[in-house]
């Protein structure tokens, strides 16, 4: 089991309210990602769930039990920290066994669980090394190992991949997803990287300034962003947001169109523009096009073969069925 429910939970540091009261339910076995720009309160929210910070008001319920005043160790949650937080003076084996030792398990049981976790995480050969002798990816796996041996109700990940290089990050992302599929335990994962959120989550919680902007599956967020913030935050490259006269034509304050939903050709189209920088990724090409309809260049995603000269005149046509409309407050118009 591992259902976590936040009832009107808020957090203030002194007079600064970091998180205004919010409600959120995380179902058992879900992989939930908290995503948002840095300073949006996502890590604080995670630490409130962990019990590392006191809530200012409201209640944290774990499996229907009010855990608000239960100390972190007794909540049955395990956490993987951004810096991995491995104990530098202990071997990998001792690191992974530490929570079991604290729980007073007997030596044989500790050994059995550590060996099991090491096997799952490919750490068997490294058990007698110190964290300082491991690579970033290996340290990350030790931190995860330390979390899984406890067989917690839920795993909490605080930006666990941000200290890894790009290639490793992709690998670890898959490993963590794989782990979730196998363990089927609730996981709460904090990141500022929307790609991680999109690829891993069952449910994404988009936060800004401590406020939940939208909760939904990755596709829901992609297809029906509730406001301009979510629209701009989810998806890469970013959605083109256009205001002014062009938006008014559609009866909105702002319209949004994703780069992949714009057709581009040299002959005719709705908007006329000049090709700026092109980014060729092989599979795709991104064109940045200066258009009359918006002061910002419009990003267009095309297939890899497409090529235009710098400065070439082109025509763009947004696909009307993919047009997003937002009102003056930035909220989606249904």
């Amino acid at each position, binding site marked *: 089991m591992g259902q976590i429910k936040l009832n009107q939970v808020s957090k203030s540091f002194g007079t600064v309210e970091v998180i205004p009261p919010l409600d959120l339910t995380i179902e058992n076995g879900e992989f939930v990602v908290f995503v948002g720009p840095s300073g949006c309160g996502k890590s604080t929210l995670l630490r409130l769930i*962990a019990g*590392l910070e006191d809530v200012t008001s409201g209640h944290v319920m774990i499996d229907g039990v009010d855990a608000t005043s239960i*100390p*972190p*160790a*007794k909540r049955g*949650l*395990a*956490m993987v*920290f*951004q*810096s991995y*937080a*491995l*104990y*530098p*003076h202990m071997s990998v084996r001792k690191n992974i066994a*530490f*929570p079991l030792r*604290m*729980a007073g398990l007997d030596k044989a049981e500790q050994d059995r669980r550590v060996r099991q976790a090491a096997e799952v995480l490919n750490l068997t050969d490294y058990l007698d090394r110190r964290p300082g002798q491991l690579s970033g990816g290996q340290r990350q796996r030790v931190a995860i190992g*330390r979390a899984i041996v*406890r067989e917690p109700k839920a795993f909490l990940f605080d930006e666990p991949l941000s200290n890894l290089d790009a290639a490793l990050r992709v690998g670890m992302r898959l490993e963590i997803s794989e782990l979730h599929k196998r363990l089927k335990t609730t996981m709460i994962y904090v990141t500022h990287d929307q790609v991680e959120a999109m690829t891993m989550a069952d449910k994404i919680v988009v936060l800004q300034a401590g406020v939940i902007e939208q909760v939904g599956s990755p596709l829901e967020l992609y297809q029906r962003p509730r406001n301009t913030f979510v629209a701009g935050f989810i998806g890469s490259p970013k959605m083109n947001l256009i205001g002014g006269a062009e938006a008014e034509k559609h009866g909105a304050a702002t319209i949004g169109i994703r780069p992949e939903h714009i057709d581009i050709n040299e002959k005719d189209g709705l908007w006329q523009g000049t090709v700026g920088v092109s980014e060729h990724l092989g599979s795709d090409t991104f064109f940045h096009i200066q258009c009359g309809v918006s002061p910002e260049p419009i990003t267009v995603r095309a297939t890899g073969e497409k090529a235009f000269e710098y400065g070439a005149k082109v025509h763009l046509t947004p696909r009307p069925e993919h047009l997003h409309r937002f009102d003056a407050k930035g909220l989606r118009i249904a």
Partner: protein
Amino acid sequence: MARAVTPRRKALNTFAAWLIGLIIFFPILWIFVLSFKTEGNAILPPLDVLRAPWTFESYGIVQDRSDYFKHFGNSVILAFGSTLLGLIIAVPAAWAMAFVPGKRTKDILMWMLSTKMLPAVGVLYPIYLMFIKLGLLDSRIGLVIVLMLINLPIIVWMLYTYFREIPGEILEAARMDGATLREEILYVLTPMALPGMASTVLLNVILAWNEAFWTLNLTAAKAAPLTAFIASYSSPEGLFYAKLSAASVMAIAPILIMGWFSQKQLVRGLTFGAVK
């Protein structure tokens, strides 16, 4: 400056640095040489001193005649006693300030630092008077307390900077892993802080060993450490170069060796983290 330099440049640097290093070190080297000569030979011109026969004679005389070991023992008790006592009081304080910082933590640290800047001579008479009234004059326990108090700010500061280098996430991880406060301190914090604590002890033993205001003014015969013992040579016995040299070498050798191990901590401890 990882750039490779030419061998000629490197040789030049080496020569200049060694020359200057040896000049600076020379006075210490010289008393070392003099301590192995006879009294008569020690006052000869330098080249004749070097040519004169070597002998351990002076070391024997210093020990026989002047209770060297009593003073050495006092120095050890004062230096280690005051440091240990300081450590016992400072560890909890530094722990609290580093891991549970409050609004006033910074002010408290700064204020502690300011007590270190109080000129000793400004409070000489009150302390002297209190020592007389409490019967602490020329007692080791009195000096242990005074030396502990004058070094307490440095001990707190050093421990604070070492503790602060321990990432808070590690302690949180321990807490998540189910460690109680006691277990957290015992299994996680202490092993990680041990090197820092050792350095703190080292530097403070050195500072207490060499302290030469209170040890000179608050002791007579019984509790006098090596600083006072050496000062007693100032005249007219000072003319006995060989014995004076032997006594000096014995007084500074242990601390010189400790000092060489504490170079890095010296900067941290004496600049209160203002230079990194």
